[in-house]
């Protein structure tokens, strides 16, 4: 759903805090698909991802009245989505780590470079913390500062993990081709 509302997230939060349900609706549709994608990435289960979506926005609603957005919405929502998703996976079965989730993701879209399996395998070979920062940066579109805030780690650590992830992908024969010519 296209978001034609020119208001910033802060404006929408303030309007919702003043009692405007339409402002919340705009916020919901603005971040719904990102939240469900993130939840899917953590859970690899459609039902769990949809539950996490609902729980995340219920969590946001519990902040009213009196909620003030002091960071970006993605920074605010990311830890909530992650925690609810981890809880959902634990309920479903013993938590096995994000690398295993990559193996479970059905082919939603076939990559054009490396094959799906090669890319998933290369990602799975990364350290969990490095992979998480890589995906937050290049799939979620979060800035380094937003990643630092969302994960509660120093900016230098974010840069270090991202650098390590990219270096590994550059060296991995399955993904080396992406970097040739760069």
């Amino acid at each position, binding site marked *: 759903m296209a978001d034609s509302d020119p208001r910033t997230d802060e404006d929408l939060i303030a309007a919702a805090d003043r009692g405007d*349900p339409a402002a919340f609706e705009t916020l919901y549709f603005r971040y719904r698909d990102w939240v469900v994608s993130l939840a899917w990435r953590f859970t690899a289960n459609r039902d769990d991802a949809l539950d996490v979506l609902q729980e995340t926005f219920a969590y946001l609603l519990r902040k009213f*009245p009196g909620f003030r957005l002091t960071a970006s919405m993605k920074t605010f929502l990311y830890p909530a989505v992650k925690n609810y998703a981890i809880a959902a996976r634990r309920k479903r079965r013993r938590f096995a780590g994000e690398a295993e989730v990559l193996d479970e993701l059905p082919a939603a879209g076939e*990559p054009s470079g490396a094959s799906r399996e090669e890319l998933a395998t290369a990602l799975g070979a990364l350290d969990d913390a490095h992979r998480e920062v890589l995906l937050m940066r290049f799939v979620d579109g979060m800035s380094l500062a937003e990643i630092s805030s969302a994960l509660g780690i120093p900016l230098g650590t974010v840069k270090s993990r991202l650098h390590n992830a990219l270096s590994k*992908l550059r060296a991995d024969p399955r993904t080396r081709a992406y970097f040739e010519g*760069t």
Partner: protein
Amino acid sequence: MRDAQNHEAEDSQLLAPKGLTDDLARLLRPGFTVPAEVDRVVLALGRRRIRASERTRRVVRWLAGAAVAAVLLVALWVGTSRARLPQDIDGSGRVDILDAFTLARVLDERRAVERKWDVTGDGKVDRADVDAVAMSAVRLDKGRVQ
């Protein structure tokens, strides 16, 4: 200049090729859309919660206003009560025999008197006013703020 160049050099190490980022997005995209029923549930919860929180804010604002008004009323009452009671020599909020004793001591010690202690209204503060305060104190409704 060197810092800016180092910053740019560092940032270039943190860039990823577009082909990689596009393929990552494709790999990790969920193969389903959010059902309309889920949207309805979340939005209905949102409407209930936002309206309830607005009602809560209205109640809190009303209570805060009522509390301020109550404080102002009490302050006004205390202030005007004291002003209406020239016999309350010691400012205790009650008119009793102690007020007569206090005024008598003030006169005996020739201390400064306040004009409002001229209870008899004869233009001076003297023993007649002490007697008038004592008479007020022994009335049946003595001690109560009038």
